[in-house]
């Protein structure tokens, strides 16, 4: 365990969230056990009021967790100054076996929280609390995952050894390395880029055809595809270095913190895309598919700009 202010703050935020969610958890269990819209007991009345508390808590925790994940990335990036060998957050995440899982779980949890909120809004629009039991059942799953995230975070920071040498992103995303991503790395980056743009075109078609389910599914695929394309195709153009593949170095000041913008666009675009399928049809304002598509387009536009700009400057392609 190592005290840096960033680690203490990250743990503080997550402890707070967990404590609040524990209250919501108790409410959720009670609602699942006894909630019955048809009954007119005082317990039912109390439960309806308590469901407001639970949903306020979840909305608050989500509002905290979204900036907190960027803060978590910032924490990892800061730690790379301390941990020998690490030159960006990539080395810090892989410093022990918990890091990668923690990171992925954090992202998954935010998407789940967001979906929960969509369900909650849908519930408020029904006249008979139609989705209340469903949303609290869903919340139980989220709570378990958040609990797991908290345990992983404690394990991760607890096992973070600041004197142990870790790998730099140069080795982690190297094609020759035996990293979990080596399988993906073996694919020709041109194919990856092609698949990425093809997926983007498919999103456009789905948006034109107003097929929400297809758009949602494609958005779900777009997230990993964009990450992989960013690592293996676009990042060399952003770094202007053919050997530099890293999804974390773009968060650093040398690249004008462009990564924070890119990931924000990607997360918002894919989240709204995924949520579009769950957006209830009879709500006053159906989700316009062009909104998530707009975010996706901004993301694609920025990363493509780097490629074209590099070509414009140097008249060569890097890969």
């Amino acid at each position, binding site marked *: 365990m*190592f*005290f*840096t*202010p*960033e*680690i*203490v*703050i990250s743990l*503080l*935020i997550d402890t*707070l969230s967990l*404590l*609040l969610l524990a*209250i919501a958890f108790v409410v959720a269990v009670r609602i699942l056990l006894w909630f019955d819209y048809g009954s007119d007991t005082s317990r039912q009345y109390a439960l309806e*009021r308590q469901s*407001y*508390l639970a949903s*306020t*808590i979840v909305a*608050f925790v989500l509002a*905290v967790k979204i*900036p*907190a994940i960027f*803060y978590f990335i*910032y924490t990892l990036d*800061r730690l790379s*100054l*301390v941990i*020998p060998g690490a030159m960006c957050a990539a080395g810090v995440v892989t410093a022990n076996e918990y890091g990668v899982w923690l990171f992925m779980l954090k992202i998954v949890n935010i998407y789940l929280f967001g979906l929960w909120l969509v369900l909650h809004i849908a519930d*408020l629009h029904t006249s008979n609390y139609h989705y209340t039991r469903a949303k609290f059942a869903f919340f139980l799953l989220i709570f378990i995952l958040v609990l797991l995230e908290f345990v992983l975070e404690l394990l991760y920071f607890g096992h973070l050894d*600041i004197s142990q040498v870790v790998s730099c992103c140069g080795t982690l995303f190297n094609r020759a390395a035996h990293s979990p991503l080596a399988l993906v790395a073996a694919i020709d980056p041109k194919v990856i880029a092609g698949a990425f743009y093809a997926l983007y075109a498919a999103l456009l078609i789905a948006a034109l055809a107003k097929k929400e389910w297809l758009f949602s599914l494609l958005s779900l695929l777009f997230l990993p595809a964009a990450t992989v394309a960013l690592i293996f195709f676009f990042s060399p153009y952003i770094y202007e270095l053919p050997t530099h593949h890293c999804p974390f170095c773009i968060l650093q000041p040398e690249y004008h913190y462009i990564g924070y913008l890119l990931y924000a666009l990607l997360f918002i675009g894919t989240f709204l895309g995924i949520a579009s399928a769950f957006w209830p049809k009879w709500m006053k304002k159906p989700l316009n598919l062009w909104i998530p598509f707009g975010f996706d387009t901004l993301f694609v536009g920025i990363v493509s700009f780097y490629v074209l700009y590099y070509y414009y400057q140097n008249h060569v392609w890097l890969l």
Partner: protein
Amino acid sequence: MNLKMLAFALSFLRRRLWKNLAVFFVFWALIFLVSSAFLIAASIKKELFATLEELPQIFVQRTIAGRLLPSPVARIEKIEQIEGVEAAYGRVWGYYYFPAAGVNFSIVGLDMDMAGFTPWMDEILASGKEGMVVGEGVKRVLLSHYYKEYFNFITPSGDFLKVPLVGAFPAHTELESSDTILLPMQTARKIFGMPQDQVSDITVRVNNPKEIATIAAKIRVLYPDSRVLTRFDINAAYQNVFDYKSGLFLALMLGAFFAFFILVFEKMSSVGKEERREIAILKALGWRIGDVLRLKFLESSLIAIFAYGLGVVGAYFFVYSMQAPLLRNLFTGFSVLKPRFELIPVLDIGLLLSIFFATVPLYLAATIVPTWRSSVIDPEEALR
């Protein structure tokens, strides 16, 4: 959320001015304290990193049984033969205890043939005077013991060695140089009783910074009894020390955070009769639970935003205009030769974010349950 809601929330806050001011003040104080500590640590770190840039790339020290020992001069030449090394220098330095004041001076011997340290140093060398140049702190201590023009060192053999004082160096980076005495290498050898064929340690200059790690590894192989430190090691070590200090400070503050949480929770839970009536009237007028929650949350957010803004501004004023009395001792430590340095202003977005995340979610979290409690008031009961 619209502006009318904001104005309404403000009027709500004004109606219970003293209760809200009390919470505001405590929250402000908490933010102020955390910000001040973070700013001091960041400033000191900035100052240290500024001086680190001028350090040699590699230090080679000889150890036996874990203790530092002087290195033989012959090693300098050997190290210089490694590919990529531009030059290696032997240094003679150490500590001299001055019992009358109970302090240690850092004595650094300089090779007087080697010019080009800094302009002020060259100036003193050009004047041709042999003697010592001291830091501000040393000068203060010497003056208070009536050594105005010279100082008598006592060598290991018990003789006096009278060294004239020829100047004091400017104090822009006082943190590192306040306790330092610079004098010719031969004089330093006499003070320490160190033979001619030995140096305290060796510094290495490398042309290409990317080769530093490799060259350090080669030196380790060449002299297994040596401790080889690179500038990066020192950089990371400093980062560690100050991260640890501010992290520990924050961890100690957790108790205060907890107390604050309870305080806000209690304050917010004690909804007065007047306030209950107001909420009940709103609900009777058709406000839903969600609307009351929004209003109450807006109130808390207003307090949080103002407290955060004013707390950070206050901390900047306290740290940089007043130079953080009392609190800075926590980070600089205490000694007689304590440097009188100015804290350099730091504006770092990451730092401001850290302060924000350490305090604002805590406050808002503490208000959720009481806010909900007041929003579910039954209008019929409350108005009766």
